[in-house]
């Protein structure tokens, strides 16, 4: 991993005095994580004190407590997650079907490729604004924004997975006259599962972005709406706190839930490299 230009002392070589042990701990990976977190906290505290618009960690914690104990926080998240999950469900169903078609048939791929490429390139904010103009202040707005943003990403991932499916097995099953639905069920689906999952993780981040945008511009409840309300009220403590709530939520969901599930499910595979997958 490291290029080895600066060899770090291993634990076996580390001096045994208490001070030496502390020094060794600081040099370890865990020490680096702690240093990183500490730097971030100090940095936040300093800019919080320096800039009037940015609240300090203590102010945010206090605000979090007030929102959590009054129940506003949970209600807003419940509201947002409702539309978010329905939209993701639709994106998953449509995306997998579309991806299978794109991956299995050259004709469909040539036919629809450009349209999917356009779909990938359209930013979530455009879908959010269009959804508001189309559906107004209704439940359909966040659902449509999430589904429209996320579907092309799932479809593309699934199509890639299908094309990575063993050609030999495909040809053999064609030769032996295996019906297409059994071919999809026993050959294609198992091999695209991890692509579906990767696509789903994209979709979660993309969808979260879209649902927040839809609520910010045209919602009457939910996390995006709350954030907007505090912004309009010119209350930056409330505004920054709500922004942090939705960041922390998506980071926890992605890192703690989805990544663990991925690691468990695909344990048998070689470790894949992690690449950032920001969503817009």
């Amino acid at each position, binding site marked *: 991993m490291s290029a080895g230009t600066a060899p770090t002392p291993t634990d076996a070589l580390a001096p045994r005095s208490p001070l030496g042990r502390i020094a060794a701990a600081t040099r370890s990976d865990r020490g680096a994580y702690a240093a990183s977190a500490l730097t971030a906290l100090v940095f936040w505290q300093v800019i919080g004190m320096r800039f009037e618009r940015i609240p300090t960690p203590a102010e945010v914690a206090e605000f979090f407590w007030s929102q959590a104990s009054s129940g506003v926080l949970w209600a807003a998240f419940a509201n947002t997650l409702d539309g978010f999950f329905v939209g993701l469900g639709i994106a998953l169903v449509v995306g997998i079907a579309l991806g299978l078609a794109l991956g299995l048939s050259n004709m469909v791929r*040539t036919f629809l490729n450009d349209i999917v490429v356009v779909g990938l*390139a*359209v930013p979530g904010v455009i879908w959010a604004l269009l959804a508001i103009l189309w559906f107004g202040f209704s439940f359909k707005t966040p659902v449509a924004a999430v589904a429209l943003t996320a579907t092309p990403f799932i479809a593309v991932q699934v199509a890639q997975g299908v094309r990575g499916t063993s050609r030999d097995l495909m040809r053999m099953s064609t030769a032996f006259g295996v019906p297409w639905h059994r071919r999809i069920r026993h050959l294609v689906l198992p091999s695209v599962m991890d692509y579906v999952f990767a696509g789903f993780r994209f979709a979660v981040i993309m969808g979260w972005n879209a649902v927040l945008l839809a609520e910010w511009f045209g919602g009457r409840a939910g996390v995006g709406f709350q954030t907007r309300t505090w912004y309009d009220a010119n209350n930056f403590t409330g505004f920054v706190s709500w922004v942090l709530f939705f960041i922390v939520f998506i980071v926890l969901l992605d890192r703690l839930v989805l990544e663990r599930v991925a690691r468990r499910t695909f344990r048998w595979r070689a470790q894949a490299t992690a690449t950032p997958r920001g969503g817009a």
Partner: protein
Amino acid sequence: MSGAVVSGPRVEGRDGRGVALGRRARQVALVVAGWLAFAGFWTYASNNLVNPFILPTPAKVLDEMWTIASTGELFEHFQWSLMKTFVGFGLAVAIGMPIGMLMGTSRWWRAYFHMPVTVAGNIPGITYAVLALVIFGISVEGPILAVALISMPYIAINVAAGLDGIDRGLLQMSHAFRRRGRDILRHVLIPTVIPFVFAGVRLSFALAWKVEAITEVFGASNGIGYMIRQSYDEFSVAGILAWMFFFVIFIVLMERFVLQPVERRLFRWRPAEVTS
């Protein structure tokens, strides 16, 4: 990520030229048919299924695009958005490259930056837009900051990965001949890293371009995002769609004719799978 584009089947010449040409013609016909079917369905839907205000016909949107292009609005706002995106990338390279080099050469720094870089690369774009809004208000600097923040992790991670594959022998030899750290940096590390900086830019381009637009939707007085916002405020679906198509056409052209060719050139010396 959006580089994960489904590419069409490759026409192979081995079946003879006539067959290949026939296949090519069939392919073009299918692509055209795809667009025609799409436009046809869209026209039908806007004439019969919904209110044309909700979904204007393709002809109306094309007309709108023509107006935007011929009045010079297109050029003016594209210029602004492009300028902000490029300055943002410059900033991202300036910050991301040193971070990536630290991560690539020292285990401690890799662990130190692991968390911030993964978090920064995995949060939704709206975050950067509102952050820019808090710090700068309605401004030119806001989108620049948003682009820098969203693309920096990609550049850092790519540079770190690039340094993993550095020629160790060259480094050891430089040390053996007691080259100064500055010389090693200049003649070994930086030349190795430059293509990976570019790979980071290329990977994050579509994303940065989108975040730039989102930030402009939130608070700007020029640029594509600002025009999309203006169309929205005027309840003009045709306007939003027209700007959306310009936006998308630009991404696709940029990917096909600038980023992919340059990347292929820079990474000619490597096996293909390493870059993606």
